[in-house]
């Protein structure tokens, strides 16, 4: 590498992100996830063929940050809305961006059936174990014993049930082609997450069916932690309950590499 080449290698904003500051809280990993997706869209040259579907929750305004066509779904309905877009435009890259309250609670039927249909869309599923936008209530992903504003004594599994391991559950469906879990808590895992995001979009662009990347994320504000503490909590508590891994890789996807 020459000095001149090094000189031009600067850290720039991906073309697929707009030049605005986000409304996300300091330290929130939504920004990281947005950037990774935008980088992959840039690298694959899909910016002018992408239609994103935002959901309800903190990422409701995702359409302000991605510099691509976007629509915004009712709470939990993003996979259905993406189905409508994709069936009309099968050659576009259609992705949803959903949180855990949106996808794993109110939108459980829509995500399960989109996966079961093998709908050729890509889902980015941000799991931060609570409802962020409404102020940190218990979500289906809240860990046993975890304190939230609606489980003030810690989630009691006897009365409030158990967390849902979404990736593992959806992986059981024949229609799902690529279902993995990654984490955003350190540089190594962020790089692995980006690779999975790339694979998921490749799966869609090759017409191989439903792809989902669950991204373990932090919510420092509602967890009452500093960003650094939150990342540590993610690594210690969440990764234990929600192991990072590939839960479904269809043979056709495995061959793809």
């Amino acid at each position: 590498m020459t000095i001149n080449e090094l000189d031009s290698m600067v850290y720039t904003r991906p073309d697929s992100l707009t030049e605005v500051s986000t409304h996300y809280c300091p330290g929130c990993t939504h920004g990281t996830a947005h950037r990774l997706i935008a980088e992959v869209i840039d690298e694959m040259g899909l910016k002018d063929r992408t239609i994103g579907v935002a959901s309800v929750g903190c990422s409701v305004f995702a359409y302000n940050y991605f510099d691509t066509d976007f629509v915004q779904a009712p709470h939990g309905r993003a996979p259905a809305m993406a189905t409508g877009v994709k069936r009309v435009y099968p050659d576009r890259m259609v992705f949803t961006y959903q949180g855990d309250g949106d996808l794993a609670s109110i939108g459980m039927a829509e995500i399960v059936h989109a996966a079961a249909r093998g709908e050729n869309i890509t889902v980015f599923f941000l799991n931060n174990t609570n409802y962020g936008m409404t102020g940190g209530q218990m979500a289906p992903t809240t860990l046993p014993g975890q304190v939230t504003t609606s489980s003030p004594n810690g989630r009691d599994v006897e009365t409030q049930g158990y967390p849902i391991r979404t990736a593992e559950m959806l992986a059981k469906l024949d229609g799902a082609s690529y279902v993995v879990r990654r984490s955003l808590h350190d540089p190594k895992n962020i790089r692995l997450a980006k690779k999975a995001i790339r694979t998921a979009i490749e799966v869609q662009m090759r017409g191989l069916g439903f792809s989902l990347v669950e991204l373990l994320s932090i919510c420092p504000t509602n967890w009452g932690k500093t960003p650094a503490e939150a990342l540590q909590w993610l690594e210690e508590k969440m990764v234990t309950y929600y192991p990072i891994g590939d839960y479904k890789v269809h043979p056709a996807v495995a061959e793809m590499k």
Partner: protein
Amino acid sequence: MARELMKGNEAVAEAAVRAGLAAYFGYPITPQTESLEYLSRRMPELGRAFVQAESEVAAINMVYGAACTGHRVMTSSSGPGISLMQEGLSFIAGTELPMVLIDVQRGGPGLGNIAPSQADYNQIVKGGGHGDYHPIVLAPASVQESVDLTVLAFDLAEKYRSIVVVLSDGSIGQMMEPCELPPMQPLKTSFPDWAVSGAKGRERRFLTSINLNPAMQEEMNLRLMYRWQEVEANEVRYKEYYMDDAKFAVVGFGSTGRVALSAVRAARAEGIPVGLIRPITVSPFPSKILEELSKRVEGMLVLEMNAGQMLEDVLIATHGQVPVEFYGRMGGVCVLPEEALREIKRLVKGPLTTTGHPRDRWLNRIAKKN
């Protein structure tokens, strides 16, 4: 073009196909399921999109997604399914997207039954979802009219970026009648400048119904209301029968309007000077026509297969200028022509009054009889 004998639900589905339907999303529910079944064969045959959704909630949101692309999209359902769709319908109204909904009404509330009813008038006409919006609502009284209004529905939806509902019922959906289908229109190839498609060679677009700034949301609300005024000014449709010399008027929509016509003809045969107003657009409601009428007839009779839902719109339109009576059947029971004729005779005989509420008089008559 030759007339064909077709079942209402299938005729509507084929009419939509010929109107350029690009994508259909639906869920089985009696008495509309034949539309879904028909399109499950017909749409793939033409290389167009068809999905049997996992619920009406999903179906309306698939419609929402496809409507964002500006293509012609539709779903069909009945009472319980329409209730599930209200969230999506409100979002679609809030995003100002064109779409067509076929509502084949059945008896309710709750699971009710699968017999014909008009009890979803308020839900549909008054916009059952949250927030201020008005769908355009067309009420057919025959298979042929269902076909014609379905085609019109797509045009109006696009013209006003609006939800257009074809408010049918189980009798029209299930009945077979001869009808002439419209010519096959090609699928649209150009799309409006708000539609998403991937930002190729243009600025990106996004479609959303959220607006956290109340003042800006109010601007949007006002835009919808001004557009609705335009609809009210230009799109009121109704049919009148034997009204030229009528001293009494029957008002009924959809299949009840059709039954009323039989009764009006029978009354005319007996020399009773009665006519019929049948609103085609129950939203926008032909209020001005009824107001005019209230100045020249001696009495009005509203017939419905519900407890007097359109009746309220008639009362608002005529605001006490003319005596109004009401007769209805509910729960999936149809008004029969002889019942309608009996009610016309009761109206003509009097006594007529503009005090009290027609619904109370109707209920009191039933209570007395029992």
